[in-house]
């Protein structure tokens, strides 16, 4: 089964916000980045990536001054297969992130009511991979 493995928050001050969650819940800071889409920090609880980011483009159509929960990410076995399924269900492809990007290839979609999410087949930094499938586990 696909797994929720990434939650992204839009922040004005990612440094201060990340520091708060590290101190509040003992989450570990596993990566900081400054890319074309956002600047910020990735925290991990050992399972999920919590990304605290200052976005550089308006991905949600809520304006660049929007702060709050921004998008989530789902780890899948096969991005192409997931993308086909999503498009068949009415999901709207937004963009691919590839090339030299740290953290691997991912595809962004809008689901119902414009909710933005990523699908990726490479685990976000510091997150758990997909559980072994039964067939693999039996080998």
């Amino acid at each position, binding site marked *: 089964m696909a797994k929720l493995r990434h939650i992204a928050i839009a922040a004005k001050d990612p440094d201060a*916000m990340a520091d708060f969650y590290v101190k*509040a819940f*003992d989450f570990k800071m596993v990566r900081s980045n400054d890319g074309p889409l956002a600047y910020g920090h990735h925290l991990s609880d050992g399972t999920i990536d919590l990304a605290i980011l200052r976005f550089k483009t308006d991905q949600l159509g809520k304006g660049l001054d929007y702060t709050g*929960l921004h998008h989530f990410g789902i780890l899948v076995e096969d991005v192409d297969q997931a993308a086909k*399924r999503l498009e068949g269900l009415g999901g709207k492809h937004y963009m691919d992130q590839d090339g030299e990007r740290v953290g691997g290839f991912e595809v962004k979609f809008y689901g119902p009511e414009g*909710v933005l999410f990523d699908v990726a087949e490479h685990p976000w930094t510091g997150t758990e991979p997909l559980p072994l499938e039964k067939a693999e586990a039996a080998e």
Partner: protein
Amino acid sequence: MPKLRHIAIAAEDPEKMAEFYKEAFDFKEVGRPNGALADGVFLSDGTLNMAILKFKTDQLGKGLDYRGIHHFGVLVEDVGEFSKRLEGLGAEYYIDRNQQEPNAGYFEKKFYGPERVLFDIAEHPWAGCEPLPAEIKEAAE
């Protein structure tokens, strides 16, 4: 360590949105919350609870017509202890949800963190989510 175990989305049509995620990712429906704060559908990926909710109050100050990811929830060992820690870090306590609310199923406290980001803490797992991993001390017993 506390664990992220809950993500809530504000939806106009929770049923339709839930169908999408069930079909898209094989998430399982694990509940139909109907409370004072929101109605909707609980899904699970086996680890997290994904709540797709039509909210009845404006918890975020973004208006009741806000659509999108609304808040997240962190499972902790001790809500009292973490409440103190959060308040010491400047978080603002918002509300308790307790057993008096039908179908709540768990106790949780809501806080506003930096930049008014809303999150819950709870010590009883949300529907369909994994409990905290056994601590080393417990595992050794």
